[in-house]
């Protein structure tokens, strides 16, 4: 069915926005972690309860990005935004910061990471910028987060990486875009970029599989991803090619298979302005959501059918985490959403790109 822009907007509008707090549970238990900036200057990481109430926060020296949660849900590590040079460790039970650590000389964090299945190791996506090579730095979570090694991501610009549900396979989105901290965030290789989705053996660091999109899509930077319960990686891309190209921004891949882009009404992807900032799967495993702060839209797909379900207009939206059958959403204008319900708004606060569910 063709959906024109007018009907599309009508459909979104018809969904409405319910009053603040109708569904939120204020139980005071840590539920989500997200970085934020207050008053355009003060950076911090906040731990929220299910209703979006800030339980406690810790200041950061610069903008944070994503957060890794330990399997026992006791520890959160927030990574600095790229080019990032610090990570902060939070004790979620003691509700306080317990450590900071930094990447070694010649490396910077990309802003994402994850714990091993047993919680003993922390992996962080890093830039070996002089060699223009992506690595996963490995840190000893039980030993003061000392860096004990690194493994190659077999691509440039690893961004989000995750441990798959099997506990043994690491999936990495190599965005393909070369940067160097001397040039801040300037993209140095757009004409020749080669993004990839890579699977690594967590035990050995060996490359299991490297997936590349067709050459015509070499400028679709694979940055963010989530795994659905059927062992499928759903990834979201950021397109660096022509603005007038119409590109499917979300794709899927199951290890051993071929990557497939997910179709959606043209206006749904047009509303994302060629940019996906975060991807997640709901707790029920039935829906995948991708956000676009550039276009101000959340686009939701059905996991089983791969069909487009709906698009929600939220200005400057980016952070998204599973929340039952729907999603917990944050935006750059200080708002938090539980599904379609606005549950909190804090003027002067800008929620950073990611929000992570504890557990």
């Amino acid at each position, binding site marked *: 069915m063709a959906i024109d822009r007018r009907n599309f907007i009508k459909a979104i509008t018809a969904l409405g926005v319910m009053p603040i707090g109708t569904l939120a549970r204020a139980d005071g238990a840590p539920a989500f972690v997200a970085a934020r900036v207050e008053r355009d200057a003060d950076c911090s990481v906040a731990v929220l309860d299910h209703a979006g109430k800030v339980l406690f926060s810790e200041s950061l020296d610069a903008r944070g990005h994503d957060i890794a949660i330990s399997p026992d849900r006791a520890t959160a590590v927030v990574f600095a935004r790229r080019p990032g040079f610090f990570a902060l460790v939070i004790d979620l039970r003691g509700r306080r910061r317990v450590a900071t650590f930094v990447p070694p000389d010649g490396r910077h964090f990309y802003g994402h990471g994850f714990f091993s299945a047993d919680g003993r190791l922390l992996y962080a996506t890093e830039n070996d910028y002089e060699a223009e090579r992506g690595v996963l730095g490995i840190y000893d979570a039980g030993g003061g987060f000392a860096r004990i090694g690194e493994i190659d991501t077999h691509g440039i610009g690893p961004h989000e990486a995750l441990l798959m549900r099997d506990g043994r396979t690491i999936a990495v989105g190599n965005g393909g875009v070369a940067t160097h901290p001397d*040039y801040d965030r300037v993209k140095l290789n757009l004409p020749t970029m080669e993004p990839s989705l890579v699977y690594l053996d967590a035990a050995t660091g060996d490359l299991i599989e490297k997936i590349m999109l067709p050459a015509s899509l070499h400028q679709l930077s694979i940055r963010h991803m989530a795994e659905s319960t059927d062992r499928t990686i759903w990834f979201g891309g950021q397109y660096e090619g022509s603005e007038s190209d119409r590109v499917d921004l979300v794709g899927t891949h199951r290890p051993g298979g071929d990557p497939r882009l997910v179709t959606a009404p043209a206006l749904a992807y047009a509303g994302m302005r060629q940019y996906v900032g975060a991807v997640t799967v709901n707790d029920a495993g039935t829906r995948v959501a991708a956000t676009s702060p550039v276009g101000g839209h959340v686009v939701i797909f059905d996991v089983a059918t791969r069909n487009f379900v709906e698009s929600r207009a939220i*200005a400057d939206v980016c952070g998204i985490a599973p929340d039952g059958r729907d999603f917990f959403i944050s*935006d750059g204008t200080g708002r938090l959403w539980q599904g379609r319900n606005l549950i909190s708004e804090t003027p002067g606060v800008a*929620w950073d790109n990611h929000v992570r569910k504890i557990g």
Partner: protein
Amino acid sequence: MIKQLGLVVLIVATACWPAHGDDEGRVTEIPAIAFRPVVVDAVEHFVLPRYALLAEKADAEVTALNDLCWQADNERLEAAREGFRALVLAWSGVEMFRFGPVRDGNRFERLFFWPDPRGRGLKQVQGLLASRDATATDPDSLRGKSVAVQGLVALEFVLFGTGSDVLADKDAADRSHRCGYGAAIAGAIAGTARELSDAWRGPTGYAALMLEAGEENPIYRSHGEVVQELVKSCREMVQMDQQLKLAFTIGETLQDAKPKLAPFWRSNMTIASIRANLASVVSLCGAEGLGAALPKDSDWQAGSLAFEIRNADSTLANVAEDGAPWEDLVTEPKNHDLLAYTRIPLGGAAELLEHGYPDALGLITGFNSLDGD
């Protein structure tokens, strides 16, 4: 209804962005601004003529190179070098644009492959010169090669880099290939510049897309979004000049200076090109340009923008006055201090474009959407 929805979204997004609300976080009143007139003016009197000028200067450089290749002498070499300088200035007038046709087919990088921290482009250019690869002397086949070997930085090396004097020596063995490669680069630049100029024009051109912003437009839903794009271009240009071309290359101290990482040092056009960048920012975003859309109580910002940039520009002019090579003058203490000083006015200009203009114009500059990740 659609217009009302658009307004609601605009107010919501604007009010909650920290820089927009007042101290109590109240909603900022959005002024009713007619953006279309300044968009029309910017497109017709800035963008289109400047891309046309780029194509014109590139064509002239093709003629100059062909003339030099036909007959090698100092006079013709100097004419080709002078043509290159004019071409750099024309490019610097549109360098701020990283959207639209220049993003298609890697045209930006084809014209200007910079920064290149590893010197990959230089190695490729030197390789082509040494190999005497005949496909490098034909503009069409050259355009099929790496973007790094077919733009201004490559042409600069051919005309000003090590060994370039052979271009004036009709008996030199290397002359013919080097000159042929230079002419092919000029031809490739001219081809790309013509494509750019053409892609902006006509009923399906990018200018029409900007002028016809609206609900059905695939890229710009309003003329306010077009203004936002153009203001962003001005801001990014100022920041690029301030942070990468100046602060990074001159370093914190004399000892940290890396002048050869700046663009166009071989032709000693570094400062001239930065000044041309800044002049274009004032033209596009100053009082005679997009600044005309500022509400009365904020129109002082256009004057402040021009003041800050004039301040930086006169400092740069002062440094460049005696014509000393960029790589020498950067390591002279007085000049280093003056160049370091430009950070202050350029920082002020960038601040106006990043917060002042968008606030006054009611434009959305999202926190997470601003520079993405």
